[in-house]
C-alpha cells in the first residue's frame, strides 16, 4: 500500500488530513489486498484533492473500482453541505448521468437458438459507435420535453410503459432541470444523438442469470436462474459533454470570484447557492434527464426487436432498475447524528440506498435499491442491493464497475481485437462492434476482475450481492 495511507478495517483505508495540503476531512476508500496492487498514486492524490473542497462533509470517499481520472478519481464520492458547500462538474464528469439499466425477459438460454441473428438485429436497431445518428427527429420543443421530463417524456412519447418509471432513480426525471442552462451548442449536439448508444465503454449486452445469492431479494427483483436479461450502458452523449465543457469554464471563473483555492483546475466549483452553481445544477439535471430518456428510448428499441423475434409483450420485459453513476444529487443524510441536506457527487459510483429509503418502489423497499455492476465484455455482471451500512458510511453509495487496469496504449500493443473476439466466441460470447479496435480497447483483460470489486463492497457491507449474470452477446460502441 502507498505510504501515508492507513488501514482501518480489512477492506477500508484512510488517507489522513495532511496527505495533500489543505485537506478539510480525511479520505477513505474501500479496497482488498488483491486490488491494492493496482492502486495508482495519482488516484489517491485525486481523492485527497477532493477533500480540500469547501463544505465537504465527513470524508472524501472512493469505491474499490477507484482509478486515476480527472478532477475526482473514478469511483469517487463526496457530499457537500447545501449551505456552505460547492458543486463541481469535475465530480460528475463529461458523461453526465452515464448509467446502466437491466431488463428481464421471460426467455431462458434454450430459447436463444438464433443468438447471432438477435445480436445482428439489435446492432441494426440501436445506432452505435462514433458518428452514429438517431432515427428520432426532435424539435427544440421536444428536446425541451426530454430535458425536463427525462424517461417520463420518453414514456409519454410511446417509448415504454408507465411501470418503467418507478424503476428508475428519481423516477427517470431529476427535479430542478433547467433547459435554459443548456446552450444552443449542447442542444445541437444532443438532437441527432438522442437514442444512440455512443462508443467507448458503452454497451448493450444479452445476459443470462447464472447464480443467485439471495433468493428472496432476487425474487423481488424478478430474477430467476437461467433467465435472459438485457443490460444497457450509456449516458447523455454530446449534449452532456458540451454542458460539462461549457460550465467548467464558467465555474473556473466562479472559483476565482468566490476566492476558492483548488489543487486541480478540473475541480473548478462554485457555491451551491451561487448563480453559477445553480446554473450548473440546472444544466446537469437537464443532461441527466436526457440520459434517462436516452436509455429509455434504447430499451424501447431492444424490446421491439425481442417482441418481433420472440412474440413477447413489453409487460413481459420489465425494467428491473436504472442507476446513474456520474451525477450530483440533492439528498438528505444522517451525519454524526444530525440530518443534513447535501449535494452528493458520484463520479463512477452508484447510489446504493438501503431498506426503506425514499425513492424506492414498494417491492424493493424491504431490501434496498437494486445496484447494477457491469463486468467487462467477457466477465460476469452483478446485481446487488443497497444497505443501511452504505447509508451510514458512504452517503448511500457503492462501486460502479470493474475499473480499468490496462491503458489503451498497452491494450493496443498486446491485444488484437480479432483475437479477443475469437476467444470470446469460443466461450459462446458473440461480440458485435463497428470495428475490431473498439473490442481490443475494452477486452476483459483491461479491467479489474468484477467479481473481486463486488466481493469488496459486499464484505465491507456497503451493498450485498443478489445475483450474477453472464454475457452471451455484446454490442460495443
Amino acid at each position: 500500500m502507498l505510504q501515508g495511507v492507513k488501514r482501518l478495517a480489512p477492506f477500508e483505508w484512510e488517507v489522513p488530513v495532511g496527505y495533500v495540503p489543505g485537506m478539510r476531512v480525511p479520505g477513505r476508500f474501500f479496497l482488498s489486498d488483491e486490488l491494492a496492487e493496482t492502486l495508482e498514486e495519482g488516484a489517491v492524490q485525486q481523492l485527497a484533492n477532493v477533500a480540500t473542497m469547501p463544505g465537504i462533509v465527513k470524508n472524501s470517499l472512493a469505491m474499490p473500482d477507484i482509478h486515476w481520472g480527472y478532477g475526482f478519481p473514478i469511483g469517487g464520492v463526496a457530499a457537500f453541505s447545501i449551505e456552505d458547500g460547492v458543486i463541481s462538474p469535475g465530480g460528475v464528469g463529461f458523461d453526465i448521468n452515464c448509467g446502466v439499466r437491466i431488463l428481464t425477459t421471460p426467455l431462458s438460454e434454450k430459447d436463444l437458438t438464433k443468438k447471432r441473428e438477435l445480436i445482428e438485429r439489435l446492432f441494426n436497431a440501436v445506432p452505435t459507435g462514433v458518428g452514429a445518428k438517431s432515427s428520432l427527429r426532435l424539435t427544440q420543443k421536444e428536446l425541451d420535453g426530454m430535458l425536463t421530463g427525462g424517461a417520463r417524456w420518453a414514456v409519454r412519447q410511446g417509448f415504454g410503459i408507465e411501470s418503467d418509471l418507478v424503476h428508475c432513480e428519481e423516477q427517470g426525471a431529476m427535479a430542478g432541470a433547467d433547459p435554459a442552462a443548456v446552450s444552443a451548442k449542447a442542444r445541437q449536439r444532443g438532437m441527432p444523438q438522442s437514442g444512440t448508444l455512443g462508443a467507448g465503454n458503452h454497451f448493450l449486452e444479452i445476459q443470462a442469470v447464472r447464480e443467485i445469492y439471495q433468493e428472496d431479494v432476487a425474487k423481488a427483483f424478478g430474477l430467476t436462474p437461467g433467465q435472459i436479461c438485457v443490460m444497457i450502458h450509456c449516458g447523455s452523449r454530446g449534449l452532456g459533454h458540451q454542458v460539462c465543457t461549457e460550465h467548467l469554464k464558467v465555474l473556473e471563473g466562479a472559483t476565482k470570484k468566490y476566492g476558492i483555492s483548488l489543487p486541480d483546475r478540473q475541480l473548478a466549483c462554485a457555491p451551491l447557492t451561487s448563480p453559477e452553481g445553480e446554473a450548473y445544477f440546472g444544466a446537469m439535471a437537464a443532461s441527466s434527464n436526457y440520459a434517462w430518456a436516452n436509455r429509455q428510448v434504447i430499451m424501447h428499441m431492444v424490446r421491439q426487436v425481442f417482441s418481433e423475434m420472440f412474440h413477447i409483450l413489453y409487460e413481459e420485459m420489465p425494467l428491473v432498475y436504472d442507476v446513474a453513476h456520474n451525477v450530483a444529487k440533492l439528498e438528505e443524510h444522517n451525519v454524526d447524528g444530525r440530518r443534513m441536506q447535501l449535494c452528493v457527487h458520484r463520479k463512477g459510483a452508484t447510489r446504493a440506498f438501503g431498506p426503506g429509503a425514499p425513492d424506492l418502489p414498494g417491492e424493493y423497499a424491504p431490501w434496498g435499491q437494486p445496484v447494477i455492476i457491469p463486468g467487462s465484455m467477457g466477465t460476469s455482471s452483478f446485481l446487488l442491493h443497497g444497505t443501511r451500512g452504505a447509508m451510514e458510511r458512504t452517503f448511500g453509495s457503492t462501486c460502479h464497475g470493474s475499473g480499468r487496469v490496462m491503458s489503451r496504449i498497452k491494450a493496443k500493443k498486446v491485444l488484437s481485437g480479432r483475437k479477443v473476439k475469437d476467444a470470446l466466441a469460443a466461450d459462446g460470447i458473440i461480440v458485435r462492434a463497428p470495428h475490431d479496435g473498439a473490442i481490443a480497447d475494452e477486452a476483459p483483460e483491461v479491467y479489474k476482475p468484477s467479481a473481486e470489486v463486488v466481493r469488496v463492497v459486499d464484505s465491507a457491507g456497503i451493498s450485498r450481492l443478489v445475483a450474477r449474470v453472464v454475457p452471451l452477446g455484446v454490442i460495443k460502441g
Partner: protein
Amino acid sequence: MSFEELEHTADIRMRVKASTLEGLFSDAARALMTVLYGTIDPGNICRHIEMDADDPVSLLHGFLSELLYISDVEELVISGAEVRITGNHLSADLLGEPFSREKHTSGREVKGISYSDLTIVREHDSYILEVIFDV
C-alpha cells in the same frame, strides 16, 4: 509525427511537441482528430474560428473543445489547422473532410478535454504539451 500517446489507465494522454506555440496547437488538433477518427486525410472544407482566453492553457482547452464541437455537429474530420496566436487571442483556419462511417472506422469517441494534468512547458527550443482526452 509530433505527438505521441503516453500511458494512462482510463483515458488517453497525449504528448505534443512543436517549435512554436502555433505549431503546438495545430499538432494538438491533429492528435485529437487522430484519436477521434483514426485515419485523417487532407480535406478542402474550410472553417474559421476565433477565441480569447486568460492564458495559453485555457486557450488550448477552449480550442480543442471547439474542435470537438465543430467536428461533432458538422460531421467534419479536421485535417489541418493554421493557427495564429496574438497575446491571448487565437484565430484559426481549419481544413477538413466529411466524416464517413466506411472510412473513419478506427476512432474513439472523445467526451471532453481534461484540465487535470494539462500543461504547456517550454524546453530549450520547443513547446511541449501534455493533455488528457476523456474517452
